[in-house]
């Protein structure tokens, strides 16, 4: 799918002691942008042989630091143990477009390889010149250039002086899969040792000199006013230094976190009462269900070919999906130090440039005056694409005239998230006289993200509307007639990307409804899907092309590996679901559940098959599948966020339950080889969408009860 590999290279020699190459990986979606020089990484080789890779991707558990180091190190011919990683900070240039989301890092990283290849060719050229041999007789391996014929070897470090004086090679050849040394190898996490010894530093662990600790009492509903508070009592708490009011609430600053928390409690802020029409999630769910039946904005339409039998009857269903919190273990936090028109930020963020830009706007300064240091992230899942927690830290630092660390409490984090928005789905299948599906309709009613404003000049065509409803317009099945649509519904609470963005609700509805149709037909749910996946190997929606072949393959693999078709015990059931994520990653699951007499569901086993293109690190792929499955179990069987009087009702992991060890099934991951794979695809998000419907379908097989509303409650099944 990537047609051009526009990589811009630039060399810099620092006193002849290092070879440095800057590079740019264009996003797949940016192909129509003008040619800008936006490098988002550097490859640097020092005289001591250290290879330093500066990467612009945030590590939040998805393994991106390890995978990028593998890709670049392999292309360079580096020795794995000599690779050092440096986290890029955003800058006006060269790091002006950093961001980690949408499972795009593998593709972007893949496009950075020419930089490593150029460095390798320069090192080889330098060595060949010294040996007076032809460069093509030499190779780079294990951090050195080798001349096999004469058994000579020169470490990279000894070559950087000469190499950095050479012109940058054009189109340095890239390694082919047969030559990979690191790519495809099971490679332990580069930060693993730091993690198990407590040395890994997350945002919450950062400190700067003279820093105060802040805790913010936040308005319970948007627009609430602090009507009364006891500042004297808060000041009386030992260690409390100051109290400042900002957009986000009333901040108590203190010498340590505990004093800030106590001061905040002592303030006893009384907020104005919520208006009678304040946001209520139950009423919102009803609105969504109503909206889903509206015609909406079309995202795809295919008319039935002539000669298709007419619709004899229609089966329809409404699926309802709730709000969820991200609930990463590391609460939102940020250090900010505003001094005049300058600001230093230390922040666990997925969007360093958004933080920089928004803080610069807040301070009425330019982005170059805002220094942003990105830390390791204790769970991102899309929550840290928002800059709210960084902005408020800058605001508080400015008001208090001091460096501050703002640390959210767990209830702050749970109640003031950028939630996964609720949505409703209307599905309808038209069947002909014989019961074959001749038409498919799927309308999603949901809400635009409100992380940042939608540009008014955006063209609202089918593709634009489709962009809000992944998993709807890209239905992979070959129905004669297809009509999909999106209905936007206003949502006055903060919401935004969550793991897998828009796909989870859509795929839950679609794959569950397909299961309904299979049972209606008396068909085997895998055979039924494979039959619907017949027809052309590829199909197009707008400009996007989708490939059915890998989806058929992963379905066949889970059928073969899961004892599909073998009888299961009483109250046990087996279900299937599959999905193509963002046109790229193909996954199928077979799930075994047991539903007890009280209606409690235990997911006992999951067999997964995935085709994610070229595999960089098999450990990383397995981990993300396992993690995505557990994430899905949390959303199927755990908590939801509800709103009453404008406020989120949940406050911690006991009332927003997430999966725990006892809920974890046995998981089998089959990475389906794809010999045609030319590039890797991301794995952070794709494992999430199909797991919930596979569970729902297994529950139907076990109990005969069809779940159309999440989360699944024992009462639904008792």
């Amino acid at each position, binding site marked *: 799918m990537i047609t051009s590999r526009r990589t811009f290279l630039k060399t810099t020699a620092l006193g002849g002691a290092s070879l440095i190459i800057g590079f740019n990986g264009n996003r797949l979606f940016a192909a129509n942008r003008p040619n800008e020089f936006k490098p988002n990484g550097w490859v640097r080789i020092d005289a001591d042989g250290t290879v330093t890779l500066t990467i612009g991707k945030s590590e939040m558990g998805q393994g991106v630091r390890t995978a990028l180091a593998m890709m670049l190190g392999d292309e360079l011919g580096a020795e794995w143990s000599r690779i050092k990683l440096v986290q890029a900070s955003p800058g006006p240039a060269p790091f002006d477009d950093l961001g980690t989301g949408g499972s795009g890092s593998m593709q972007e990283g893949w496009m950075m390889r020419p930089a490593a290849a150029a460095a390798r060719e320069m090192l080889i050229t330098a060595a060949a010149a010294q040996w007076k041999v032809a460069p093509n007789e030499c190779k780079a391996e294990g951090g050195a250039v080798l001349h096999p014929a004469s058994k000579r070897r020169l470490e990279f470090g000894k070559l950087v002086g000469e190499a950095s004086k050479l012109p940058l090679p054009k189109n340095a050849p890239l390694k082919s899969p047969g030559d990979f040394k690191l790519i495809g190898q099971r490679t332990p*996490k580069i930060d693993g040792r730091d993690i198990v010894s407590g040395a890994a530093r997350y945002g919450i662990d950062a400190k700067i000199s003279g820093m105060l600790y802040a805790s913010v009492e936040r308005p319970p509903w948007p627009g609430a006013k602090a009507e009364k508070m006891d500042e004297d009592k808060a000041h009386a708490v030992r260690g409390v230094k100051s109290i400042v009011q900002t957009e986000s609430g009333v901040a108590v600053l203190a010498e340590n976190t*505990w004093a800030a928390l106590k001061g905040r409690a002592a303030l006893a802020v009384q907020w104005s009462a919520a208006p009678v029409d304040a946001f209520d999630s139950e009423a919102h769910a009803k609105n969504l269900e109503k909206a889903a039946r509206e015609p909406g904005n079309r995202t795809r339409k295919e008319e039935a070919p002539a000669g298709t039998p007419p619709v004899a009857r229609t089966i329809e269903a409404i699926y309802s999906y709730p709000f969820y919190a991200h609930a990463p273990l590391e609460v939102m936090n940020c250090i900010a130090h505003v001094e005049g028109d300058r600001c230093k930020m230390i922040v666990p963020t997925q969007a360093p440039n958004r933080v920089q830009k928004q803080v610069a706007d807040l301070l009425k300064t330019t982005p170059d005056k805002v220094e942003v240091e990105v830390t390791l992230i204790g*769970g991102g899942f899309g929550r840290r694409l928002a800059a709210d927690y960084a902005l408020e830290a800058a605001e508080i630092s400015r008001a208090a005239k001091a460096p501050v660390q703002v*640390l959210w409490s767990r209830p702050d984090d749970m109640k003031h998230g950028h939630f996964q928005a609720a949505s409703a789905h209307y599905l309808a299948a038209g069947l002909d006289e014989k019961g074959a599906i001749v038409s498919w309709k799927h309308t999603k009613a949901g809400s635009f993200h409100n992380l940042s404003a939608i540009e008014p000049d955006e063209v609202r065509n089918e593709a634009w509307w489709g962009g809000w409803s992944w998993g709807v317009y890209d239905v992979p099945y070959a129905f004669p007639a297809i009509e999909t649509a999106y209905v936007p519904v206003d949502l006055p609470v903060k919401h935004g990307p969550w793991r897998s963005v828009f796909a989870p609700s859509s795929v839950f509805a679609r794959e569950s409804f397909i299961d309904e149709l299979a049972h209606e037909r008396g068909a085997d749910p895998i055979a039924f899907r494979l039959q619907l996946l017949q027809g052309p190997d590829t199909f197009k929606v707008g400009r996007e092309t989708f490939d059915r072949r890998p989806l058929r393959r992963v379905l066949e693999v889970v059928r073969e590996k899961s004892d599909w078709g073998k009888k299961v015990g009483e109250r046990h059931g087996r279900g299937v679901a599959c999905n193509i994520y963002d046109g790229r990653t193909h996954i199928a699951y077979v799930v075994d559940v047991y539903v007890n007499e009280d209606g409690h569901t235990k997911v006992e086993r999951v067999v997964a098959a995935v085709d994610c293109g070229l595999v960089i690190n098999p450990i990383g792929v397995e981990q993300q599948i*396992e993690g995505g499955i557990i994430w899905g179990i949390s959303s199927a069987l755990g908590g939801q966020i509800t709103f009453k009087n404008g406020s989120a009702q949940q406050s911690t992991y006991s009332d927003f339950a*997430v999966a725990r*060890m006892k809920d974890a099934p046995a998981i089998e991951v089959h990475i389906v080889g794809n010999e045609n794979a030319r590039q890797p695809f991301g794995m952070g998000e794709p494992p999430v969408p199909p797991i919930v419907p596979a569970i729902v379908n297994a529950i139907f097989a076990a109990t005969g009860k069809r779940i159309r509303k999440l989360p699944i409650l024992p009462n639904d099944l008792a």
Partner: protein
Amino acid sequence: MSKIALNINGTRKDVDVDDDMPLVWILRDVLAMTGTKFGCGVGVCGSCTVLENGKAVRSCQIPASEAKGRSFTTIEGLSRDASHPCQRAWLEEDVAQCGFCQPGMILTACSLLRDQPNPSDEAIDAVMSESVCRCGTYPRMRKAIKRAAALMQEKKS
């Protein structure tokens, strides 16, 4: 407020803190030992777990007045070189994703293995389900605990 002495990883620490300051903040803010994580503050997630005489305790639930005079081991004190069987097993099974909850998880596993050197799946579920990992590393943690148990038995024999 009072001056208290407590022992962290074998070293006496004197701190001057409020009586009600939880141990997690004494460790993190006062002693700058950040391996112990803050997660929920109410004892439901396990991120702040430390060991006392080998037994897992939640440092967010122990105020200074109670921590006084007691001895605790944090993740930083488990070994000098990540060589404790649980740390080794965690690395060998490639458990961590974001890693934030893992210090608490590793110390909880140490406590479990002290009480039950060869734990069943049920015992692992019972003890480890008191803690939260949002990345979903549970299947690997289960394997790592079994591997650590084997490593500990090897060491003994």
